[in-house]
């Protein structure tokens, strides 16, 4: 019924792995979300407890916590919320790399769901078992296949909570940069900068990571750095209209209206899906 597992080398060289240093917070009624998230956040170096997280992620009317709210809370605490490729080997690879993984299981049936968050902290390839912190159990083992049945029903949802200078073992560029952009939105700017730097170091050709870095400079009010970064980007990617738009905005705020107008007209010339935004930027310049 389940396809056989294809395990990466990083997993098979560590057939028995257990992240024993991972903290444990026994959950209270309906509070597995705050408990599991606190476990992962503390493991990533954030000082927090489930009680602090409860008003941030617990939804009383649903007697539980939603996945999206766990993501948002992770970002607000300056950590990258990275949703893994939905496969067991990815979970094992992360655990082998020292990263505990938050998983959503449906412990019962599709027609009678019992949604539950737990944290995978280890595995034993010989015994074909996973080791979890789950609910009120500080250490529970469950067979791979049982886990896969219960996990499949949640769409194999697995969340990695990472300090922004860390990459997932299974890192994918666009997934990772998007996850860092979530930090930018949650106003964790210093963490976002570190995240983009991490991405730029690992993927030197990542345009998205470079745009992220330039935008962080802008958001932190360092217009000189933002101009420098955008000029370098425009020189390297002369066909990316959004780069001209953002450079224009930076120049305008630095009081260089003529240059700003030139840049925004170039953005409109190139066009693309965001052309309405460029036109609005131009209107805004002309109005002032």
């Amino acid at each position, binding site marked *: 019924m389940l396809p056989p597992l294809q395990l990466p080398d990083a997993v098979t060289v560590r057939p028995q792995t257990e992240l024993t240093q991972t903290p444990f917070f026994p*959950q209270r009624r309906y509070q597995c979300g705050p408990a*599991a998230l606190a476990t992962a956040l503390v493991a990533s170096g954030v000082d927090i407890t489930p009680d602090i997280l409860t008003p941030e992620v617990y939804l009383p009317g*649903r007697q*539980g916590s939603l996945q999206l709210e766990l993501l948002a*809370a992770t970002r607000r605490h300056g950590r990258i919320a990275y949703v893994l490729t939905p496969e067991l080997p990815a979970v094992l690879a992360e655990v082998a790399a020292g990263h505990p993984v938050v998983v959503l299981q449906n412990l019962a049936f599709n027609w009678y769901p*019992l949604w539950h968050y737990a944290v995978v902290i280890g595995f034993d390839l010989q015994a074909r078992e996973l080791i979890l912190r789950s609910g009120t159990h500080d250490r529970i083992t469950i067979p791979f296949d049982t886990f896969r*049945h219960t996990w499949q029903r949640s769409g194999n949802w697995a969340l990695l909570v990472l300090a922004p200078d860390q990459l997932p073992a299974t890192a994918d560029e666009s997934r990772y940069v998007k996850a860092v*952009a979530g930090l930018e939105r949650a106003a964790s700017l210093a963490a976002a900068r570190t995240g983009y730097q991490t991405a730029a170091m690992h993927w030197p050709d990542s345009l998205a990571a470079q745009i992220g870095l330039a935008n962080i400079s802008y958001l932190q009010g360092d217009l000189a750095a933002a101009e420098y970064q955008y000029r370098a980007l425009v020189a390297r990617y002369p066909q990316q209209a959004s780069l001209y738009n953002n450079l224009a905005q930076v120049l305008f705020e630095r009081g260089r209206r003529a240059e700003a107008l030139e840049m925004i007209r170039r953005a409109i010339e190139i066009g693309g899906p965001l052309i309405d935004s460029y036109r609005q930027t131009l209107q*805004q310049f002309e109005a002032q």
Partner: protein
Amino acid sequence: MNLMRSISRPVAHFVICCFAMFSLSMPAAQAGMIGTDTVLSAEQRTADQAQLSQLLARADVTQKLVALGVNPADVQQRIAGLSDDELQTLAAQIDTLPAGGDALGVIVLIFLVLLFTDIMGFTNVFPFVKHGAARR
């Protein structure tokens, strides 16, 4: 008194919506800098459409979170940090998305069914069940 009670909730929702839309209207002026995640997901829909639907989604989610028992003082903080797409998803499916709670509260009627399926390894409700049988 009853009238007061029946009016107060919609009024509260209205006030919250106004607040959400007002607080959003400042940073969301789409002219100016384009955020990193917008560049990343520069899809076909125009910026204007995205802006409007985001505005509505934000107000909608705000109202629904309060209706589901979240303290209104916590709502703004909770939705900060959600991307536009995530807000849309939440607005549309907040009542049906999985809400991870716990493994308790199983009604007695299906206890035996679950016990059996637990032993078979298809479910995992009861931690005391040993899962030997599931190995293929």
